C-alpha cells in the first residue's frame, strides 16, 4: 500500500476541517481528490506531507508513519502545495537545484535529474529565466518539475491546474498522466472534468467527510445518467399553465426567473428523447424555443446524486 489514511480528523478551534476520513491508495494508482473549496482537501494533503499534524488518526506513506518518520517520508513524496509557492527571485534551474540539494542529492545526480525534469516538463525554452518572468503555465510546470525532481514514489499535487488556460491544463494533465505510469499520484481538484480525464479513481470529499470513493468509470456512469437543460420558451401566455404541462412530461422542473421570458431547468433521464418531446409540445401549444442549452452538473448536484440511493434517481 502506497498511501494509507486511517481515521484522520483535524480540528481548528471549534471547526472540524476533516472528520474521520480513511482511504488507501495502491502503488501506481492515480487518484483524484475532489471537493468544493473548503472541503478539507488541502488540510488532508498538508497532513499527509507532514506539514500539519492530525488531531486524530494516522497516515502511512510507503509503510512509514508520517508522525514518526516525518523526514524519511518527505524524501518519498513530491509535493506541489496549493497556489504553487515559488521563489520569484530565483532562476528556474537554480530553484530546481536548491530543491534537489535540500533532498541531499549529489551533484551529478542532481544535474541529471534537473535535465530530466526540464525536458519532461517542457521547461527548456524558459529554463534560463527568473521565475518572476515566467507565465503562470510555466510557473506551474516549474512547480510540478520540483515535485518530480527527486524521483519520489508518491506525488501529492494540490490543485495542479488552477488558474491555467485550457492549453496549459491539457499540458499539465498529460504530464501528470505520464508521471502516473510509475508513481502513485494523489491530486486534488474542485472540477469534476479534471479528475475524470486524469484519474483512475475518485475520492469525493465534502465538508470534511468522504462522500464517495469509487473508480472514475463508476462515477461517470452515476452522474451522466441525468441531464439538466435550461429552456426559455417564447409564445407563452400563461407561464404557470405551461409549467403544469411541462411537469406532466418531465419529472423535475425548476422555474428560473433569471431572464425576462419564462425559463425552466428541466432534468431528464438518460434515455428520454428530450428534444423530440419538447419540439412536440411546442408544436402542440404554439410555443417556440428561444434558448436551449445543457447545464453542467455542479459538484453539489453530483454529491446529491451520489449520496442519494439509485431508486431516487429519475431515469
Amino acid at each position, binding site marked *: 500500500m502506497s498511501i494509507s489514511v486511517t481515521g484522520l480528523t483535524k480540528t481548528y478551534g471549534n471547526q472540524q476541517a476533516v472528520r474521520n476520513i480513511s482511504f488507501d491508495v495502491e502503488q501506481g494508482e492515480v487518484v483524484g481528490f475532489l471537493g468544493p473549496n473548503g472541503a478539507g482537501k488541502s488540510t488532508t494533503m498538508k497532513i499527509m506531507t507532514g506539514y500539519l*499534524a492530525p488531531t486524530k488518526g494516522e497516515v502511512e506513506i510507503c509503510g512509514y508513519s508520517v508522525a514518526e518518520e516525518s523526514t*524519511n517520508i*518527505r524524501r518519498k513524496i513530491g509535493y506541489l*502545495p496549493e497556489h504553487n509557492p515559488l521563489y520569484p527571485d530565483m532562476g528556474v534551474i*537554480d530553484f530546481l537545484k536548491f530543491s534537489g*540539494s535540500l533532498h541531499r542529492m549529489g551533484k551529478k545526480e542532481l544535474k541529471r535529474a534537473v535535465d530530466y525534469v526540464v525536458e519532461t516538463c517542457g521547461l527548456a525554452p524558459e529554463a534560463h529565466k527568473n521565475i518572476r518572468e515566467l507565465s503562470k503555465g510555466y510557473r506551474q510546470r516549474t512547480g510540478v518539475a520540483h515535485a518530480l525532481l527527486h524521483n519520489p514514489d508518491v506525488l501529492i499535487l494540490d490543485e495542479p491546474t488552477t488558474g491555467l488556460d485550457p492549453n496549459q491544463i491539457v499540458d499539465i494533465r498529460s504530464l501528470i498522466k505520464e508521471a502516473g505510469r510509475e508513481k502513485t499520484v494523489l491530486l486534488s481538484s474542485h472540477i469534476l472534468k479534471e479528475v475524470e480525464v486524469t484519474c483512475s479513481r475518485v475520492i469525493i470529499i465534502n465538508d470534511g467527510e468522504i462522500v464517495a470513493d469509487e473508480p472514475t468509470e463508476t462515477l461517470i456512469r452515476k452522474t451522466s445518467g441525468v441531464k439538466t437543460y435550461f429552456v426559455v420558451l417564447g409564445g407563452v401566455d400563461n407561464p404557470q399553465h405551461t409549467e403544469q404541462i411541462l411537469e406532466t412530461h418531465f419529472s423535475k422542473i425548476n422555474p428560473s426567473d433569471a431572464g425576462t421570458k419564462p425559463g425552466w431547468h428541466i432534468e431528464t433521464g438518460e434515455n428520454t428523447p428530450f428534444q423530440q418531446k419538447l419540439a412536440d409540445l411546442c408544436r402542440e401549444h404554439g410555443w417556440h424555443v428561444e434558448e436551449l442549452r445543457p447545464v453542467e452538473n455542479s459538484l453539489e448536484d453530483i454529491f446529491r446524486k451520489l449520496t442519494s440511493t439509485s431508486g431516487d434517481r429519475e431515469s
Partner: protein
Amino acid sequence: MSTVFHICRREIIAFFSSLAGYVLVILFLGISGFFTWLYGSDVFFVGQANLNSFFNTAFWTLFFFIPAITMRSLAEEKRSGTLEWLITHPVTEARVVLGKWLACWVLVAVSLLLTLPYYLTIAWLGPVDHGAAVGGYLGLLMISAIYIGIGIFASSLTVNQIVAYLIALFTGFVFHTLFDLISGTLTGTTSTLLAYAGTTFHFETMARGVISLDNMVYGLSVTAFSLCLATVNLKRRLWL
C-alpha cells in the same frame, strides 16, 4: 549540516538579488564612515589613532540595520507560502532557522570586512592598539549574532516585514539600552546582573581588547535562546 549551508547560500543570493541588499550595505558603510571620519566625536576630533569612534558608531548602526536584514527572512516565507514548500523537504525547522541566521551573520561579517580600510587608514595615521581593534570587531560580530537571533525570532512571529522590524528593534532596544539604563539607576547585585544582561557591557569589555569566557557564554546563550524560540514558533503549527 549541508542543508543549513544550502539555505544560507540561497538566502545570501536572494539578499544581493535585490537592490535593497546593496543599499543596506552601502548605507551601513556610509553612515559608519561618516561618523568615524567626518562628524561628531570623529577620529580627528578625538585626535587619537584608535577605532573607538568607529566601533561606537557601528554598535548603533548595526542595532538599526540588522532588523532590516532579518525582517524578511521568515516573514516573507510565511507570507508567500514558500515556508510550506521548504518544510515539506526533508529539512527540520531548526535547520531552516539556523540557515537563515547564518546567512544574515555572514552578510554582517562581510559588511564589517568592508570597513577594514578604516582600520588600515587609522593604523597608517598612528600606532593602533591591535588587540583592542580585534576585540572590537569580535564584539561587533557577537552583538550582531545576538541581534540577528532576535531579528529572526521577530520575523517568525508575523507575516508582515514592518511588524517584524519593529518587534526586532524593540526587543533589541531592551538588550541594547534598557538593561544598561536601569542598571545605572540601581546599585549592588541587581545592577551588576542587569548590566550583564545588556549588550553594552559585553561590547565595551571586548572593545577594550578583553575577551573573556563570560562574553562568549553570554553571546552564545542569548543567540541560541532566540533561535530556539524561532524554531518553536515554526513548529507551533504542529501543535495547534
